[in-house]
C-alpha cells in the first residue's frame, strides 16, 4: 500500500505541536536562504565580484519580470515576489537531495504560501489607495460584479495552492509508483521532468501573485499618472 500523499506523519513533537518532515525541510531551506543572503550581501561593492554579479543578475531578472507584468516600478514588490519565487524554486528542487521530499508536495506549505499572497493583495491594495480605494476595486467594472469579485478573490487563492500542490505532489507520487514497479535508475527521466515542472511552477506562482497584486493596485490609479511616470527619463 502506497502512503497517502494527502496526509503527513509527525516526525517528533515540540511541546504540543507535532513537527512533520516538511516543516523541518522548510526550516532548513529558510536557514540556508537567510544565511546565503546574509553572506552574499555582507560585502557589497560598486565594482561587483563574480558572486555579487551573479546574484545581481537574479535580482535584475525579478525586477524585469515585475516591470513587465505589473507595469510599475518594482521597488515595493521586489522583496515579497522575489522571496516567494526563490523559496518555491529551492523547495521544489530540494528533491535533488537524496531522501528529502519537497515541502511544497504537502498541502499545508502551499496553503500557507497562497494565504500569504491573499494577505499581500489586501495589504498592497490598501497601501495604494486606502481601505475605500481597495474596496472600490471589487466594484471595478460595475457594481453588479461585487459578489463575483469577492468569490473570485477566494477561489483564485484556492486554485493557486492546489495548482502548486498538485504539480509537485504528482511528480513525487509518480516517481514513487515507478520506483516501486521498476528498478533503481528507471525514474531518472521523470525526475528531470519534475525539476523542469518545479521551476516552471515557481515562476507561475510568482507571476500569478504579481497579477493578483497588480489587479488590486493598478485599478485605483488614474491611467495618465502611470504613463507620465513611465515617460520620465
Amino acid at each position, binding site marked *: 500500500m502506497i502512503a*497517502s500523499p*494527502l496526509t503527513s506523519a509527525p516526525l517528533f513533537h515540540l511541546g504540543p505541536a507535532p513537527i512533520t518532515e516538511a516543516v523541518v525541510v522548510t526550516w532548513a531551506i529558510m536557514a540556508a536562504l537567510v544565511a546565503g543572503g546574509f553572506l552574499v550581501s555582507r560585502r557589497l561593492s560598486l565594482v561587483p565580484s563574480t558572486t555579487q554579479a551573479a546574484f545581481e543578475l537574479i535580482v535584475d531578472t525579478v525586477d524585469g519580470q515585475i516591470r513587465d507584468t505589473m507595469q510599475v516600478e518594482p521597488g515595493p514588490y521586489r522583496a515579497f515576489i522575489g522571496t516567494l519565487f526563490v523559496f518555491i524554486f529551492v523547495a521544489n528542487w530540494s528533491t535533488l537531495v537524496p531522501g528529502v521530499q519537497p515541502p511544497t508536495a504537502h498541502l499545508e506549505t502551499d496553503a500557507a504560501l497562497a494565504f500569504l499572497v491573499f494577505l499581500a493583495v489586501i495589504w498592497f491594495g490598501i497601501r495604494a489607495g486606502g481601505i475605500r480605494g481597495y474596496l472600490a476595486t471589487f466594484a471595478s467594472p460595475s457594481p453588479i460584479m461585487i459578489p463575483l469579485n469577492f468569490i473570485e478573490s477566494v477561489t483564485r487563492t484556492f486554485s493557486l495552492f*492546489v*495548482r502548486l500542490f*498538485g*504539480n509537485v*505532489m504528482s511528480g513525487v507520487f509518480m516517481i514513487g509508483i515507478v520506483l516501486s514497479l521498476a528498478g533503481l535508475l528507471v525514474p531518472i527521466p521523470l525526475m528531470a521532468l519534475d525539476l523542469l515542472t518545479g521551476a*516552471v511552477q515557481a515562476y*507561475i506562482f510568482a507571476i500569478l501573485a504579481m497579477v493578483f497584486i497588480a489587479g488590486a493596485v493598478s485599478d485605483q490609479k488614474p491611467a495618465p499618472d502611470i504613463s507620465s511616470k513611465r515617460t520620465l527619463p
Partner: protein
Amino acid sequence: MNWLAFVSIISAAIAVSFGAIGPALAEGRAVAAAMDAIARQPESASTISRTLFVGLAMIETMAIYCLVIALLLLFANPLLK
C-alpha cells in the same frame, strides 16, 4: 469490499481518464500554434517558447486538478471512514 469503495475507484479512474482528454487536446493545439509561430518568426523563438512553457503548465493544471480529485477519492474519501 463494499460498493462505495468500488464506485470510488471507478470514478477516480474516470476522473483521471476523461480529465486528461481536454488538456491533451489543448496542449496539442498550443504546441502546434507555437511551432507555426516559430516557423514564421524564428527570431522570436525564445519569447514564444517561454510563453509556451508557462501556458502548457497552466493547461496541465486542469489535468492535475482531476488527479487531485482522484487521489482525494482514493485516499481521503469521507464516505469510506
